């Protein structure tokens, strides 16, 4: 039932001008927009982080409503197979360059859900992760420290998970196909 609708063709290659690369990175690191999609229990910690108590907007970060406008997706906590489908879909609809931040122990090795029938154990088999923030759950201070580190990586031009994802798309697709038997979702483009 249903057709396999994984995106198998790669997006068009981005031509990079070496001259403005540094300026690009400088600007990108200071305007991280985060897609407001709570995938697990850690989404609770993102609310105080981005509102007035911890005020992430002083670092240039804010929540946006759609993946098309966003630079960062935060995988906040455990991922079930059903949620992973949606996360992959959201990630692929984001514009390059894009970054993945994984919060908590669950995306690293399964955390307390390591023997669950429905929660995945390792996120980096399915999506390229740039920053891991450990804890169960991490406090907003830890999340801010993680974002600060992400900004440093972008400044140095080292946060290139999105390039790896395009290069090794077949490998990621193979891993995704192992657990997602039927994609069965509306089609979209990169």
């Amino acid at each position, binding site marked *: 039932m249903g057709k396999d609708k994984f995106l198998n063709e790669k997006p068009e290659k981005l031509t990079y001008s070496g001259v403005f690369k540094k300026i690009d990175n400088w600007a990108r690191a200071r305007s991280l927009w985060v897609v407001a999609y709570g995938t697990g229990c850690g989404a609770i910690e993102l609310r105080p982080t981005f509102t007035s108590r911890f005020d992430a907007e002083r670092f240039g970060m804010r929540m946006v409503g759609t993946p098309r406008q966003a630079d960062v997706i935060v995988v906040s906590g455990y991922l*079930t*197979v*059903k949620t992973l*489908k949606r996360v992959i879909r959201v990630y692929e609809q984001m514009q390059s360059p894009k970054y993945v931040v994984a919060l908590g122990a669950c995306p690293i*090795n*399964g955390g307390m859900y*390591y*023997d*669950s*029938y*429905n*929660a*995945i*154990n*390792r996120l980096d*088999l399915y999506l390229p992760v740039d920053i891991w923030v450990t804890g169960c759950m991490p406090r907003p201070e830890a999340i801010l420290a993680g974002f600060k580190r992400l900004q440093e990586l972008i400044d140095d031009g080292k946060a290139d998970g999105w390039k790896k994802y395009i290069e090794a798309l077949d490998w990621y697709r193979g891993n995704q196909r*192992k*657990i*997602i*038997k*039927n994609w069965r979702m509306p089609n979209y483009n990169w």
Partner: protein
Amino acid sequence: MNIIERLKERFEVLIAEKKRKDLLIIETTKKGLIPMLFYLKEYEGYRTLTLISCVDWIEDKKFQMSYILWNFRMKANIIVKFMLDRENPDFETVYKLWPQAEAYEREIHEMFGVNFEGNPTQNEELILEDWDNIPPMRRDFDTLKYSMEKFGEREPKSRINIRKEISEQYDEWRRK
């Protein structure tokens, strides 16, 4: 004449136990469940279905189905339960008495494999998309093995072994 006597007069009541001032537990048979729920809803004022739950008693080869009802006027709960055969878990829906039962029955169908005849949406997937094994909440389903085969082993491995040993010890302790 209290409610237990009234129920005993009309239906087959195997066990009737008053747990608290506002909680009553009734065990009945598969045949007498839906008439009893109808009577409780229409005559005794237990108008709200709060929960349907299922427990797997694998040693007795039974599923225990519990229906929790709530009486708003008396601020009291009643739990009506019965034992369903584990080999042929076929039952009827109570969707016609309470529409909200549809979702509970759908979940129990997905997690335990109980078949509710007459439920319009029970074959749609609720949370397990593309499930390829026996229903996961049955106790003969090995979640750790399934997780390791499907999602890969967790590092470090020694932790898993420790956890396995603990669970084996716990099983032995339970058998005694």
